Each structure stands twice: as structure tokens, then as C-alpha cells.
């Protein structure tokens, strides 16, 4: 795999993973670039028989952990900070999408608001499991390897994420 192929193939998923981990568009862009450039630099040593996706996602998660550590250090140095991790906005800026009609648009917006509301109550790690499973169709074993957690943790995080999503979507679907 060439560096260009790697970037073309994984940039969208790495960005979605980074966005759900950081909850911030600017941080997600930085994290995406950092993770993919690290992957490109590590490409010569990458084993061909391993799955590149799992490897790239693991690099992304590790880069995110480093970012968190760096931010924690910075907060410690400043003694106080407005960057409360719980206040991180998990709703990224709106992106233009085709709208078939006002009613359909309103429904889609409502659904989207509910999804974002559920995501805001999840931990970054739970959101990461959801992204890798639902958006990239990764197996539990691959997710466990990417996030460096046991298989049981993947299962329980996914159940919590789905339960919360189902609750938020529930009343109007019932």
C-alpha cells in the first residue's frame, strides 16, 4: 500500500473516529493529520499480513491519548482552564446536506439532534466503539485490538451506546 492509498482509504474513517473521540472539529482535523502521517511514516515497517485499518485506528487512538495527556499537562500548568472535558461539544458544526423537503428535513434534523444528544452522554471510548462497529463494520476482535481493550469491554460499551441511542430515539418511534 502506498502512502497516498493509505491516506485516501482511511482519512474519512480516521476523521470520524477522531471527531467522536475529541468532540471538536479542529482537534479532529489535527488528530487525523497526525495519525495518518504517523501511519505513513510507519508504513515501511508495517506487516503486510496485518489489517491496515486496525493498525491505523490504533495509531489514531494512541495519538488521541497523547493529545489528552498534553492537554491535561497544559491545564495543570495554567492551574485553571475553560477547557472542561465534560463541556466538550460533541455536536460538530453543521455540514450541508441535500434536503428533500421541509417536513423530511425537520424529521432528519430531529433524528440527528437525538443522535447527537445520545452521543453527548457517551464517553469518547463508547463513541469510538460505535464508530468502528456501525460506520466501518469492524469485528469485535478488530475493535478490541484498535482500542487496546478486552473483547468484553467492546461488548459492554456497544450495549451502553446502543441502549442510550435507542432511549433517545424511543418515544417518537414507539
Amino acid at each position, binding site marked *: 500500500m502506498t502512502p497516498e492509498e493509505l*491516506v485516501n482509504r482511511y482519512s474519512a474513517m480516521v476523521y*470520524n473516529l477522531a471527531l467522536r473521540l475529541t468532540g471538536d472539529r479542529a482537534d479532529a482535523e489535527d488528530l487525523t493529520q497526525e495519525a495518518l*502521517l504517523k501511519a505513513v511514516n510507519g508504513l515501511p515497517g508495517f506487516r503486510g499480513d496485518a489489517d491496515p485499518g486496525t493498525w491505523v485506528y490504533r495509531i489514531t487512538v494512541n495519538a488521541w491519548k497523547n493529545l489528552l495527556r498534553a492537554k491535561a499537562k497544559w491545564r495543570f500548568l495554567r492551574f485553571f482552564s475553560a477547557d472542561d472535558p465534560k463541556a466538550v461539544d460533541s455536536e*460538530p458544526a453543521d455540514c450541508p446536506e441535500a434536503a428533500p423537503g421541509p417536513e423530511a428535513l425537520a424529521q432528519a434534523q430531529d433524528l440527528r439532534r437525538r443522535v447527537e444528544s445520545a452521543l453527548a452522554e457517551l464517553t469518547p471510548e463508547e463513541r469510538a466503539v460505535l464508530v468502528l*462497529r456501525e460506520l466501518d463494520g469492524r469485528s469485535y476482535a478488530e475493535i478490541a485490538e484498535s482500542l487496546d481493550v478486552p473483547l468484553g469491554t467492546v461488548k459492554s460499551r456497544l*450495549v451502553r451506546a*446502543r441502549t442510550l441511542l435507542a432511549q433517545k*430515539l424511543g418515544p417518537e418511534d414507539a
Partner: protein
Amino acid sequence: MAHEFSLEDLSAFLDDELPAERHLQVEAHLRSCPACSRELERFEKAGAAFREHGRRPLPAGLLGRMLRRLRPKSFKLDPTLEWGLILAVTLGIVLAGGVALKAYMPGLFSQIQQMISGAAGSLGQSN
């Protein structure tokens, strides 16, 4: 009816992540348990909603910026150094031309010398 399967089982069933025997057991249970079937349906809807509304497109320009960073940078000299080099090469060519002229065409070289001294002399007289 007793629910012998957990939410984790239902979630894993949905993702086809259960061992074959367990998968069949859950499948059989779902046929006779409306409550578990509803729960499974809720999970399915939750996943579908996230797939439809949770994905975000790559910000415009990000892919291009990353691909540009991968391209090897073309060799570019500092402008001052570039002009210095041009001057040095030009001077070198002029000097080499002068040396070659003196060595291979001494007559022409002395004629040019005389012309220059003549011109300088006439300039001195006129002043």
C-alpha cells in the same frame, strides 16, 4: 417467559458475533419472546440512525492538505544565493573567455589592449 439472554447477547447476535450454537439459541428464543424481539429491533434502529446521521464528511481541503504533505518538496535555492551563483558563473565565463583569448589569439588580444589604451589616451587628452 424468563430471559436467559442478556442485552450483550442480543447486541452480539445483531452483529453476528456469537458462537454458532449460541446464535441458534438466541434465534430460537427471539421467535417466542416479543420483549427480546422488540429490544433487538430497538438496537437495529439505533444502529441505523447512527449510520445515517452520525457520519460526518471529511472537511473540505483536509484530504488535499494531507496528500500535499506526502509529496517530496522540490529543491529550491535561497534567492540571494541564487543571484550570487548566477553572478559567479557569469564572472567565471568572462574570465575564462579572457584567458582563452590571450592564450589562443595573442594578436587580437594586443589589438584590443591598444584600442583600450588609445581610447583612454584620447579621453585623457580631451580632458
